[in-house]
């Protein structure tokens, strides 16, 4: 009788433990500045979670992805993070692209001790250079990009360089980084233009950059504004060497205006397109039904972020302990990364809450309307 009762008791309890989900908060910019980027990355995050759940989840527990739009709004994201923690008891959060949103989220994570991994913010303000961090990202920060670009400019012999960037944290932080490092490369930033998001016509700004005598332009801006700059430069008949710091934004821009306006532009590239894993991610995303899949680094970046999160949860030994998950981000050794050169493995090390260094970055150039890796 007792045995029968115990069996009955356990049979009712055990499945409930087995069915208990691991709640993961996912907040990104389904609306706002980076909506086009988020709309391509979110399906990859969902796809990976679905695949893991179909294979049995993490130690038998299914991942429950709770998705919220933050509209590129730093204030809104704090409310969302609070809701993830308090209402849904999330022990880890994955976030989207915008630096200003992620800066707010990082501060929240530091105070609330919930680890956050973001897909693609670039701001240097997110770099935790000593000790363990509560914030991680798959994207490479501005500084290593800046160093790689300055080295590239020096190699190509450009010494008079202009800067065009967004007024948001991504643009201003990157500008500060360029200004600080340019002299050591013998490069002079001769003019700088910060452009508000959603600016309609950049012909005045393009003329300013041209009139400064710059022979090269560094572009750190979102899709529409990058397209606006390319169009404006074309309109005034100015064809300097242009290098963009974000492949994701440049490829999106190329879908907005005739691609020949970008011929000769170069961009930092975090992926090696010859890697089989990269091609697999693009193919899987298309098969999954993701809209507007562009064969660039957005998908691989989201793929690495969600997989690193899953690896950290697995290695934590306790998916209900946010500190254990945070510590586990530093224990990932065997995960094969989509980003970076072939053979790149592992997660994070103390003092470096991102994955790639300047030496890991490649360049791609726009030739005949298509991006080709620069050898």
């Amino acid at each position, binding site marked *: 009788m007792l045995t029968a009762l115990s069996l009955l008791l356990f049979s009712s309890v055990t499945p409930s433990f087995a069915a208990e989900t691991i709640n993961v908060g996912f907040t990104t910019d389904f609306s706002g500045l980076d909506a086009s980027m988020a709309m391509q990355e979110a399906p990859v995050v969902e796809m990976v979670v679905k695949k893991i759940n179909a294979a049995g989840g993490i130690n038998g527990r299914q991942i429950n992805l709770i998705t919220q739009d933050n509209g590129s709004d730093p204030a809104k994201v704090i409310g969302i993070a609070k809701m993830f923690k308090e209402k849904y008891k999330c022990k880890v959060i994955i976030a989207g692209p915008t630096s200003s949103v992620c800066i707010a989220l990082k501060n929240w994570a530091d105070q609330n001790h919930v680890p956050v991994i973001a897909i693609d913010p670039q701001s240097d303000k997110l770099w935790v250079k000593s000790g363990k961090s509560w914030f991680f990202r798959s994207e490479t920060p501005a500084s290593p990009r800046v160093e790689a670009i300055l080295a590239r400019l020096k190699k190509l012999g450009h010494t008079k360089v202009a800067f065009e960037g967004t007024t948001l944290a991504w643009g201003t932080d990157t500008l500060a980084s360029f200004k600080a490092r340019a002299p050591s490369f013998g490069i002079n930033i001769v003019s700088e233009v910060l452009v*508000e998001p959603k600016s309609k*016509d950049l*012909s*005045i700004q393009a003329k300013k950059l041209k009139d400064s005598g710059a022979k090269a332009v560094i572009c750190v801006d979102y899709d*529409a*504004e990058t397209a*606006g700059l390319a169009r404006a430069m074309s309109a005034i008949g100015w064809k300097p060497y242009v290098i963009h710091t974000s492949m994701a934004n440049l490829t999106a821009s190329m879908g907005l205006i005739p691609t020949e306006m970008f011929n000769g532009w170069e961009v930092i590239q975090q992926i090696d397109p010859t890697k089989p894993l990269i091609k697999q991610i693009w193919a899987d995303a298309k098969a999954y039904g993701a809209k507007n899949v562009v064969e660039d680094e957005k998908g691989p970046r989201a793929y690495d972020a969600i997989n690193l999160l899953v690896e950290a949860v697995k290695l934590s030994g306790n998916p209900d302990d946010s500190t254990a998950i945070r510590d586990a981000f530093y224990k990932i050794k065997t995960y094969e990364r989509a980003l970076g050169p072939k053979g790149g493995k592992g997660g994070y090390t103390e003092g470096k809450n991102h994955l790639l260094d300047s030496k890991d970055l490649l360049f791609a150039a726009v030739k005949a309307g298509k991006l080709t890796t620069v050898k």
Partner: protein
Amino acid sequence: MDSYLSDLVPIIIVGLSLGSLFGLVGLAYTVIINATQLVNFGQGDFAMVGVAVCWALIAKLGLPLWVAFPLAVVAGGAMGFITNAIIVTPLLKKDVHPFYPILGTMSVGTIAAGAVGIFTGFYWMPIEHFLGNEPLKVGGIPMDTQGLLIIGTTVAIVTAYWYLLHKTRLGLALRATGFNREVSLLAGIQVGKMASLSFVISGIIAAIAGVLCAPFSAFTATDGMILGINGFIALIVGGWGNPYAALLGGVLVGMIRALIVGYISSAHAELATFLVLMVVLTIKPQGLFAGFMMPKTMNSAR
């Protein structure tokens, strides 16, 4: 000093085209205000719907721009008609506070943005420059053909609207409705039809503004709101209820923005816009051009 002057021509062109765009949206607001005394807070989304239809016809059905553009304008008018028919008129008949239909227009706009967003995945809806990518060179100065087209179209629309208002019986009825709804009813004017017509005209103007603007800065489903806000600022700066003042308000805001971008920094254009708004609200809240081209009786009525 020379470089300041050589910069001035492109700055004026950019300021005029941007200002015309804001003014057109301000005019679209005013058309409805004059007929119903209501503000359509879905105005920017009317523009976005125009862009969405134009983009879909070109990108999904392969229609040429010259076919897609008029159809998009028709869609803008239809959006206005539907908004009035399903939300505004039914609420006005219930004699509710004017805030309710205003909130209703906002809801229609938000739903439209959401629906277009689902259709497009909130991705860009790019539309090519109407007259090609090569700039027009006047005296050696390259000018963006889309900007010039916006300026020209705005002049044409305002002229047509002036003609409608002041030279036709329909315009007289529209003006009378805006002047006094009760007296217009007594005079046999079909006030309900005038309200409906004002929404249709407003939708048409907004759709034209949106589609003309899209080649400059590709639209997403949520971008109508930004154009709507700038149009509303144009309306306040220019003068409430005066279509020509709204246009002038838009041009003023556009010029100030362009001058700030040209001579100070493009990082401060938004700040400048709101500073202008604050100054106007403080020194002349009725708008800088409130009485411009308006009959004295209508001015005094406001």
